[in-house]
């Protein structure tokens, strides 16, 4: 049977082949045209509810040049090249005031994924715990 080979598919383009830098810049240009602020974030913990990735920089509310944002991505990759890095576009207009785009632009070389453990409760219920293998190790030793 066919099995989906990917194990971390957050973000809006994770099912496509990794975006090239030129493709990333086209997405950034789209966001800038909509008036959205781009930002770069990174993490070593891909848990689905790990909401707050580390901020590489503040959202670039005034940057109108995709190349300038791409420079931030490149700089972030130099330091955290073995972590997940995503680009977010923030729309601060009324009735949204939230993230409008989010896509991954860098992945660790090896992605160990997540574990599921079960604690059995009464009446056949199960309490599930999803956790990243990466977080089993101390912070400094993950994705080495």
């Amino acid at each position: 049977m066919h099995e989906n080979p990917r194990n971390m598919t957050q973000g809006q383009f994770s099912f496509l082949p990794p975006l090239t830098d030129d493709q990333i810049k086209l997405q950034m240009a789209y966001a800038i045209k909509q008036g959205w602020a781009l930002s770069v974030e990174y993490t070593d913990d891909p848990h689905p509810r790990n909401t707050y990735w580390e901020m590489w920089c503040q959202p670039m509310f005034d940057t109108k040049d995709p190349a300038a944002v791409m420079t931030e991505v490149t700089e972030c990759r130099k330091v955290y090249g073995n972590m997940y890095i995503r680009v977010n576009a923030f729309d601060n207009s009324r009735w949204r005031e939230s993230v409008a785009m989010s896509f991954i632009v860098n992945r660790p070389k090896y992605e160990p994924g997540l574990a599921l453990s079960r604690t059995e409760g009464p009446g056949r219920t199960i309490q599930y715990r999803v956790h990243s293998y990466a977080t089993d190790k101390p912070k400094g030793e993950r994705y080495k």
Partner: protein
Amino acid sequence: MATGGAGKKELKGADRYKAGVLEYKVMGYWQPDYVPKDTDVIALFRITPQPGVDADEAAAAVAGESSTATWTVVWTDRLTAAELYRAKAYRVDPVPNAPDQYFAYIAYDMDLFEGDSIANLTASIIGNVFGFKAVKALRLEDMRIPVAYLKTFQGPPTGVMVERERLDKFGRPLLGATTKPKLGLSGRNYGRVVYEALKGGLDFTKDDENINSQPFMHWRDRFLYCMEAVNRASAATAEVKGHYLNVTAGTCEQMIERAEFAKELGSVIIMIDLVLGYSAIQTISKWARRNDMILHLHRAGNSTYSRQKNHGMNFRVICKWMRMAGVDHIHAGTVVGKLEGDPLMVKGFYDTLLQPHTPVAPELGLFFKQEWASLGKCMPVASGGIHLGQMHQLLHYLGEDVILQFGGGTIGHPDGIQAGAEANRVALESMVQARNEGVDYLAKGPEILAKAAKSCKPLQHGLDTWKNITFNYASTDTPDYTPQTTTSR
């Protein structure tokens, strides 16, 4: 019909309250000079009067029967501020290209209605009046709900933006599928479909409307197996996943019991059917807000009264009531799928669910300017006979804030359910990517899909299977709009 009321002018004082039967017009229900207040509820009806009944009288009769009137004069009206409580028909327009039909605008004082109660609002607006003999047929086309009245309603328990933040999914439509076959699977087999579809790449799977607690699968068993599937898929993909657990039941107590169990198991979403009734919907909506639960509504039953043009009610009114009653998702048409839906009418439904305010747009079937008073946005769901070969059309017609549900289009994939889900996700992401890159994706849709299929075999096989499937039937619910000036005020 009554014949009293010579001169057709509104009667006042002793003449108005003499025992007997009067035309509705002269009783005060026809007020062509009335200017609706900002706080009035306004309803627009399509009226087909009985032969011999003029349009103004039919409109007045509808106003009367949906507010204070009974068939004969009653003196006890005089114990009240009767003029306030009378609904007022104030405008009648002929329907373009339908010589026996009229659009009647009727204004209701807000104090006729209990706050925060769709049941009370609808008991007047679609109550006795729909069986009234003076009209041959009657259809409620649209309503303007005043801001002050809207503020008494909770609205969607979650709303589109908060839902996206909770799911951590931005910048693309969400993907779902209804488990098939809809009836007969055991809990264990049912959960298998859920697991495969979610692991393959869908965000949501769904119980069908008629899956409750039948002999082949009782509800607790379904909930337990589905949550095993959801959690397995979530761990496999690092994404938040959900299965709409249908909590529809015979009584509200049972419905709440099922919802509590879904919560206990950690589900992010539950679902209900429209056939629950308005009070039950408001009950579960408030429960959902208290319990951080997304609430999906399946519009089971709506076509019994929304599909025919001359009688019943337009689905846009259901959209308004459900945004007020408070649901987070509602099935609202696909344009290209197997179920009824003219593109402009569907856009009218989507705007009604998603926009903070909607202007008058007769081409979309929106007759009134509507301010939504900060009520949350309700996510439209497109479900029924759609497939990945239509992805460019779906994105074009339905936009980004929508859930695209490919039931057969996932489970019926030749390489299995995971392949079906993956093919849908790849098709969607490649289309969004192309749109953002500025490609004319509507024209080049098939090329974009063909290119994406080169690195995704499931997509290629899906395209091979479904590329020629279309549902081209004429819609029955279409706009009545020709640019013109027609008022009989």
